[in-house]
């Protein structure tokens, strides 16, 4: 035995060689050189049994320490070289991220549906139910029960679509008959809204459609007053259209008294602010309560109605109502 090598110097030489290894290949040859089967350290540790007993402990301890140090250095260097290699590979893998990504198509709800859903959300939050009624209606529900007597011009052939063969069966001209059906179906309290399609015998042009959409609202309870009508309408309109002034002025409808026209302040494209009529409303006329068997002395209530088409047209600045009913995807897909 030519004697024991200087283990400290060996470890230093090894770690220096390892950290200088420029790539994984050089690192592997360094590993073979310092920890391979023929490496001096490996041979030393393999021959401990041949050493004098008093040296075996010291040489074994120092030899193993040197081997761990070399292994740690190898692992560290390998990690570093691999990280560099991965970084370089990633850098080389270029892509124009501004090209269009894979498209996931999204369709659009019709603007009228969008408004109706928002209106429903607002009133559901206040505790109203969403009611529904037929579009093919009786003259009684659409007119008589709503205090519009026979002979009234609205009941004429020129204003209303009548169904052939029926006894004044018609396409409802307003969502208000849902009020009557709702009240006939059960006792107060009643808090409902009724969005739906309505029909009037207007020729089609930019501002008229024989078919359009309304939302009706009805609240009947003990102690409801005009103040509650105002509060409800103002809350609803500001939720739907944003924080703006709401004006309520007297008007006339056959089935409410007092009746009001509701307008909101609106600034148009040219920057002019004006009142824009958006709804009709009022306290339910006692005659209507009598028609459905509610005691008008005990119950009071209010009703309101507004056009969904009109709100959608205002919101989206749509100037021609015909666009709403043509099914033109160039129009519909703008609202997704």
């Amino acid at each position, binding site marked *: 035995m030519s004697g024991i090598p200087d283990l400290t110097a060996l470890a230093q030489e090894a770690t220096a060689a390892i950290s200088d290894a420029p790539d994984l290949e050089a690192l592997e040859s360094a590993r073979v050189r310092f920890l391979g089967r023929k490496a001096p350290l490996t041979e030393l540790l393999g021959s401990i049994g041949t050493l004098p007993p008093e040296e075996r402990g010291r040489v074994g301890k120092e030899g193993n320490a040197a081997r761990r140090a070399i292994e740690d250095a190898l692992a560290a260097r390998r990690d570093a070289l691999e990280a560099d290699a991965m970084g370089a590979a990633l850098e080389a893998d270029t892509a124009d991220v501004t090209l269009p990504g894979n498209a996931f198509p999204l369709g659009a709800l*019709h603007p009228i549906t969008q408004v109706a859903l928002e209106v429903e959300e607002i009133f559901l939050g206040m505790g109203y139910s969403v009611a529904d009624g037929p579009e093919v209606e009786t003259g009684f529900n659409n007119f008589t029960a709503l205090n519009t007597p026979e002979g009234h011009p609205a009941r004429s052939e020129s204003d209303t679509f009548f169904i052939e063969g029926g006894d004044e069966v018609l396409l409802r001209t307003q969502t208000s008959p849902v009020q009557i059906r709702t009240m006939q179906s059960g006792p107060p309290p009643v808090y409902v809204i009724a969005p739906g399609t309505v029909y009037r015998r207007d020729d*089609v042009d930019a501002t008229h459609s024989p078919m359009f959409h309304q939302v009706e609202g009805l609240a009947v309870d003990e102690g409801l007053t005009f103040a509650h009508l105002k509060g409800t309408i103002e809350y609803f309109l500001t939720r739907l259209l944003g924080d703006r002034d709401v*004006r309520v002025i007297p008007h006339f409808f056959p089935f409410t008294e007092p009746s009001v026209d509701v307008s909101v302040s609106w600034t148009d494209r040219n920057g002019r602010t004006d009142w824009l009529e958006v709804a009709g409303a009022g306290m339910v006329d006692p005659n209507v309560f009598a028609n459905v068997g509610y005691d008008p002395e005990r119950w009071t209530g209010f009703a309101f109605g507004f056009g969904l088409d009109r709100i959608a047209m205002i919101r989206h600045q749509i100037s021609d109502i015909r666009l709403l009913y043509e099914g033109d995807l160039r129009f519909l897909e703008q609202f997704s």
Partner: protein
Amino acid sequence: MKLPLEWLREHVAVDLDDAALADRLTATGTAVERTVTRGIPVTQGNREAFRIGKVLTAEQHPDADRLRVLSVDTGDDAPRQIVCGAPNVAAGQTVAVALPGAVMPGGQKLGKAKLRGVESLGMVLSESELEMAEESEGILVLGDDLAAGTPVIDVLPPPGTILELELTPNRGDCQGIYGIAREVHAITGAALHDLDTAPPPEDGPGQVGDYVSLRVEAPDLCPRYMARVLLDVTVGPSPDWMVRRLEAAGMRSINNVVDITNYVMLLTAQPLHAFDLDRLAGPAIVVRRAGEGERIVTLDGQERTLGGDHLVIADAEKPAVIAGIFGAEFAEVGEGTTRVLLEAATFDGPSIIRTSLGLGLRTESSARFEKGQPTDLPPVAMAIACRLMHELAGASLVPGVLDERAPEQAPGPITLRHARVAAILGVDIAPAESAEILGRLGCTVEQGADAHVVTVPWWRTADLVREIDLVEEVGRVHGFDRIPAVLPRLEARASLSPQQKVVRRLTRYACDQGLSEAITYRFVPEADADRLHLPADDERRRVVRIGNALSDEMAVMRRSLIPGLLRAVERNQAHQRRDGAIFEVGRTYIPAADGLADEPEEITALLFGAPGARGWRQAPAEVDVWSATGLGIGLAASVGVHAEAVAGVKEPWLHPVRQARLTAGGIVVGVAGEVHPAVLKAFDVKGPVVAVTLRIPALTQVGPEEPRRYVDLISVPVSTRDLAVLVPETVTAAHVLDVAREAGGDLLQRAEVFDHYAGDQVPEGQVSLAVRLTIAEPGRTLTDEEIDGVTERAVAALRDQVGAELRS
């Protein structure tokens, strides 16, 4: 209605300025739609901005046939260039010119303009632009004695403000200037002057009955008829002040007699009619229903045929007026008339409306009668008109009045409870204030501790009938803006119905899949049933038919959403849109036994071309039957319904074999497939187009299933086995899976087809199906023998039941 404020202010001493008065009227329910100045508005600059001009030259515009380029001397150093489109403009005329900066009667400010490339430094005015006439044929040409540059304000009559009012149908009393004056008194407290209804001297000879007789045969349609006779009438022009007021209110001057009837109508809301007494046969007045087919030549020269429900004012022989609406030519007052019969009558409102609609004839008079006029009104109007006839036409009034009045029940007083006012309006209004308001409205109020007893004046008895009517009046005059806005407190117990939830989820899912929602007309042509190739006896040919449809294209209520959407596709294709995805949710209409309709909702989607995202490395495929079944099953799944496509349906509007019924829980929920090429042709649509229709009541009925119970397929191994089998092409994939599931038993968790192949290496008449079996038992690890047993049973059953052959 046009309200000249100068006229109004003669009757009510209101000290609000024009704008404030308009605001107050609007706030109390008499909506002011527009405020216009008749003539040149008085503003700082308008005296300078409106000038007399002399047209020096008028040349043809180089680029516009109907425009001329003028050189006009407006009193400045140099003439100015003005472009004018009036047909009557010519060199040498003296005209009124508005210069840039002028404030026009409607309030808009005039600027410099360029018309077809030629600059115009002003505008030559017409009477209509100055709101002095409803319409003008051309520009206003003035006298040549006026010097260029003279302020036009000094030349024209003084300007006046006119409010255009939108009256509500319950306010017939406001259809006259004096009615508005009463309303202004009520809403402002300003002093109201009494109308001068002093009669003129009755200086004619004899008695009215000596000249004419009156018979009212239809008192139901004519509750009151008054007539008087005036002699020595001189027909001629009206005085300027009357012409101006008529024109300001939107009427034209005819002659003094006709003008008086119109003037008094504008003032009192009571239409009057003047007859040339010498042209009446009899002379007699008969108020009767027209004979069926009876004819009348009205003032506009048109012959009109009347019906038995039309009321006429006739002489002894023939109709002289369509009552309350329009007079006949022959009995009209004109040059040469000396003896006049003046009518002031009340007609039944609904009857006037029917006649007016039936004949397509609406006049200032009929518009007033439509709302119903009180029978106390004719004497007021008659007195004023007779006085004016005396003063302006030199008439002598014959003593006596022909006056037929149907008996009427006088309305009793109305009790107005103070508590009721608060219960409706939500604000306490002191009894003294409500009494004050009602008093100003002309009511007689007997004040009480709990209630007022209110007697309504005759001019409001039509619309103030019940306590609630008085509550409204108190509220509106008190001011709705002074009532607080309060949200009601209510117990929230609302939720959407199952069907409403289904509709919401379906529409949301459809959008998320890239479909856009359309709304199409629900009235459709009846021919759609033919275009859909429905057999003659198909139940869906029963439709709700509109009696007074706008056109054949809108004649019946739809039974299906398909035709409306196919028309939408046609429209899109016509605009070069080759691919798309569109859907609609809505009702269909089935005639019902009670005369109304069942209105079940459906969702229908159409996919055409190759819809979907098209990117630089994505190319969507053209749609086919599986696009439709996949979408249909996805839509159903979005509402918790697990639908399957079942073969063998025969919807006539779909491809005969490339269509499937969608079923769930044994219920048919819809249909999906390729639209039949012949149907596409009928709608002028290019294929491929596929359709899905799901019935919303069926989806709601099958409904979301019960909450699923958790199955432990997590802690145990789950095995899959793939089989490739050859089966005859007539065997459906669904059948293969059913057989495999049946044979596999409880351990077979899932069986699905993941490939389908026909062609090379597959014998003619057969297809190759790849089936994946998923095998496990919750909570227990299966042995290899158990797993193989499932597979073997499935293979054996497929071989025995469908002739399947296992491919190696």
